[in-house]
């Protein structure tokens, strides 16, 4: 029924609005306090008990953090390189893999999806322990390429499952229609399939990037401590008790994913307004 709804069941208009505002405030504190605190501590110039804002709060503290640790910026660069590499590869390979999986029917479909689910469900630490020897044998230990390849294992699982879902509802008739209108296989791919899948491709990139960006054990085990991504760096600062540095690194770990998610959803909202 598409007619005007009196109200969503269970929610009386007006009633309980004070309650909902209170919940909203609690939710806001819960969701934002830890993130705000990271910013405060990173700019505290030393966060010693019992001071709330730190010894020397301000932008100067940030500059000091940056100057004291060139490794922060180096780590940001490494994480970005590994994350973008993983994201691009996961999107580019996830598409054909997901599509191939979607060709399976019946019991084979369940087996296929189960296989794609294995690298997602496997704990990265256990995976890293089991695979470290193989990576070292292939001379992939201690380098960015090896780390990207290691991150690609879970990332590809995610993007393949994602594209399996996309192709489950993708109408392939549109490709046949293009073929009937005279397009060759390459033209179908570049003029029909890929343009139609622009949004899923971008989402798969974000997915792959985030898997890599947050990864710790695979980086440690395959990178052999020589590939120092931001997460690895933050972990070692936390363990060394360097709170402001760790907090600054944590802030840098939060900002790009938030921008990426926000930017992606904004761009597509706009695209949907333009699209017929």
């Amino acid at each position, binding site marked *: 029924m598409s007619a005007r709804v009196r109200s969503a069941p269970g*929610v009386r208009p007006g009633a309980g609005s004070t309650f909902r505002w209170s919940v909203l405030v609690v939710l806001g504190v819960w969701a*934002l306090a830890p993130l705000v605190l990271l910013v405060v501590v990173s700019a505290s110039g030393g966060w010693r008990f019992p001071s709330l804002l730190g010894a020397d709060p301000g932008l100067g503290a940030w500059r000091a953090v940056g100057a004291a640790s060139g490794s922060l910026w180096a780590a940001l660069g490494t994480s970005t390189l590994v994350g973008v590499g993983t994201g691009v590869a996961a999107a580019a390979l996830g598409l054909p*893999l997901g599509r191939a999986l979607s*060709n399976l029917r019946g019991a084979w479909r369940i087996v296929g999806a189960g296989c*794609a689910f294995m690298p997602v469900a496997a704990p990265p630490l*256990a995976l890293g322990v089991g695979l470290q020897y193989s990576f070292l044998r292939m001379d992939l230990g201690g380098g960015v390429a090896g780390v990207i390849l290691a991150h690609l294992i879970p990332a590809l699982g995610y993007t393949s499952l994602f594209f399996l879902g996309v192709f489950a509802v993708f109408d392939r008739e549109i490709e046949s229609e293009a073929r009937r209108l005279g397009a060759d296989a390459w033209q179908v791919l570049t003029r029909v399939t890929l343009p139609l899948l622009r949004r899923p491709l971008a989402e798969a990139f974000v997915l792959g990037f985030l898997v890599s960006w947050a990864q710790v054990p695979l980086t440690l085990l395959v990178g052999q401590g020589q590939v120092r991504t931001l997460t690895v760096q933050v972990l070692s600062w936390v363990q060394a008790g360097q709170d402001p540095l760790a907090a600054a690194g944590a802030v840098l770990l939060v900002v790009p994913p938030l921008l990426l998610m926000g930017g992606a959803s904004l761009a597509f909202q706009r695209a949907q307004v333009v699209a017929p």
Partner: protein
Amino acid sequence: MTRPSEKSFGIAAALVLAAPVVVGTGYATAAALGLAGAGATGQASLDRAVAVLTDPVVWGGTLWILWVAAASTVLSAAIAIAIAVTFRGAGRLDALGRTLAVLPLPVPHLVAAVGGLLVLGQSGLIARVAFHLGFIDGPAAMPALVYDPAGIGLVLALTWKEVPFLTLVAVSVLATRGDALERTARGLGAGRRDVFWRVTWPVLWRGLMPAAVAVFTFVAGSYEAAVILAPSDPLALPVLTWERFVDAGLGQRADAYVLALLGFGIALAAVAVHEWVRARIGLLDGGSA
């Protein structure tokens, strides 16, 4: 119709995706049996595996991480359901509530753990506020919420991290299934309480079940949050696995392969339980007339 080549592509894709896990578990199995790795004897033996799995430290750490995973999964699912039900409407307040709840979604687990340490630690934000309000007179008086044997700090940090994902799923379950089913129920004469307990709640938990299992699996195997917030006794299974693996002693290192297999086993068991529940009670597949 599926052409033979399409089927073989599909099977090839499945093999490509499964290969790293198969190789990893295969090597770990060989190493655990003493067939591979530094301490390999060339003679298959279950002795090491039995020794590791009967070690109280190991099963203590295993039970502990299972408790943490279960507690944070249940807690975050409960919060997610409460948020989804409270902010499910079309109003601006609803949109704001959902946005706030989902905001930490892309935050890495490591950052959630660092935030947890800074908020909950004995010299953390809560301790400082309590000090300024005169509730405690120093960090030592602050109840231990991190490195504590009960794992409260770790559970809270992981809950904070997992609420956004589960909220997203709960909101989408309500939007795609809940609204229409609730209208149907009301049209059949169900009041608000009946609608919630007979339709909304059963649909929500069934819809949330796969996501909750994913959260449980992820948390139980996650290293970076545990290493920051977990106590040294009992030593959480992922941290124990790591410590044994990087230990200089070759025997300790071989133990790590058994522990890694234990980690795989937990993930496998969680998925198996989920499949059993699905087969047993049926989750939400189909149902529209």
